[in-house]
């Protein structure tokens, strides 16, 4: 079952006299429970594509054409109020900087509960808390009760990223967009977070759009992969095929540049 279908997505900036195309005619589909890797160098348009899917593009400053169909709705055309109903409920995002992505003056528990508070008003405070604690445990944080009452500055980077994942997953989304979720973490923590994401994908059947410039990570986590360069898709297909026998010159160079490190 398809859950996301992107068709001819084109994004233009209007900062200068001539429009600049940052993303050009990008098309791909995602199935339920699929892990799709989106790789490319910085400036290739991968994050912008992800932001468009998440509905976080500033509509005034950029023009986006094409279609992004998620849950039968075109994310580029529906009004913000409808967008808000999907965000945090059916679709969640984890950012790359766990240090700044949490509100410094809000307790962890409240931040994990926030999506429930916004989308599931029917739940009582106790039910919300139980769910949040459950998720803090599912992302393998020790002593969830203590973490629940902590502030972000009391946690380490790895713990904060786990909190981010808990908060993204708490309302059981169908699609999780992970925008370079491990870039700011050290290698051992990286491996733990990747394993955690894979487990969540298996258990919760959440589809993950994994954006990274780290090819060795993408190779481990995703079934399918899309390679982007200069705003367009260069190559896409099964991860194994793309990495073992790349067709395009650019992909060949990228694959050749992967350092041989194994976890």
């Amino acid at each position: 079952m398809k859950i996301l279908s992107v068709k001819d997505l084109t994004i233009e900036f209007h900062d200068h006299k001539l429009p600049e195309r940052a993303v050009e005619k990008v098309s791909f589909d995602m199935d339920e429970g699929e892990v799709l890797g989106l790789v490319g160098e910085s400036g290739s348009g991968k994050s912008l594509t992800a932001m468009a899917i998440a509905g976080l593009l500033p509509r005034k400053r950029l023009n986006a054409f094409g279609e992004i169909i998620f849950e039968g709705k075109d994310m580029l055309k529906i009004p913000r109020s409808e967008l808000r109903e999907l965000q945090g409920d059916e679709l969640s995002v984890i950012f790359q900087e766990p240090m700044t992505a949490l509100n410094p003056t809000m307790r962890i528990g409240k931040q994990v509960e926030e999506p429930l508070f916004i989308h599931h008003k029917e739940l009582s405070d106790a039910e919300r808390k139980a769910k949040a604690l459950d998720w803090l445990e599912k992302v393998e944080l020790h002593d969830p009760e203590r973490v629940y009452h902590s502030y972000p500055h009391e946690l380490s980077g790895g713990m904060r990223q786990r909190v981010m994942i808990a908060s993204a997953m708490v309302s059981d989304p169908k699609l999780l967009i992970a925008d370079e979720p491990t870039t700011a973490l050290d290698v051992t923590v990286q491996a733990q977070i990747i394993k955690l994401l894979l487990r969540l994908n298996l258990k919760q059947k959440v589809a993950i759009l994994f954006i990274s410039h780290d090819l060795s990570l993408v190779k481990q986590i995703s079934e399918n992969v899309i390679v982007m360069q200069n705003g367009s898709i260069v190559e896409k297909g099964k991860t194994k095929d793309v990495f073992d026998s790349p067709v395009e010159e650019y992909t060949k160079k990228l694959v050749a540049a992967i350092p041989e490190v194994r976890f």
Partner: protein
Amino acid sequence: MIKTVKKLFEKYKGFNFCAGLIITAVIFLIAVTGIFYTPYPSTAMNAALKNAAPGAAHIFGCDNYGRDIFSRVMEGIKNTFFISFFTVLLGSVAGMILGAVCGYYGGKLDNILMRLNDALFAFPSILLAMVIIALVGPGAFNVVLALGIAFIPSFARIVRAEFKKQASLDYIAGAKLMGAGDIRIMFVHILPNILPVLISSVMIGFNNAVLAEAGLSFLGIGVQPPEASLGRMLSEAQAFLFTAPWYAVFTGLSIALMVLGFALLSEGISEKK
């Protein structure tokens, strides 16, 4: 309640904080007592006690109409305190909403409102307040209105700058992606983060309001007689500076203490940050 006070004291042990808290607490107590009790009726005149020196019966002495100065100072502190309080309340709430909307949304609306704000800012706030009073007439309520409006620009500017800074941070993008609405983001997510800045500007604002209210009353366009007001008493005391110096001394001292208390308090709080 006692627990929170204890916690506060542990957090801010500094001398400034303690001294400021004690002075402000005493002033506050006098202001609240002044609502329902003064040793003598503040408007009762007694020709026999004209410009009487401080003594056991009248500890601050009496003024040129034979009214008890202590009672009048109490009432003056009450008036000044509550006028300043509501002035700052009006100015900070309106300024906060304006600043939040401008800082969060930005764009054309921000530009227009902030240029208007700059225009208001160009006038000294006391002059602006005088213009408004000239339009609506004197009286306690109108003083609050006039000073409150005159105080909006400074609050709006501070809050806007802080909101602009916070709105570009990742956690706000995160909150948006959880589906939070604009109002919720502004007041549940951003506001707690700018509270330290807001609190210190409210405290400075309170001091300015005390001085501005006293200034307006000194000029005779604030609180109207026979109601007592510190500024007005000071202007009356001028004429008797040599025959009854206690009149000016005690009145001036209470204004100074009011401002000092809050200044020390805000200093003490920012020390710890």
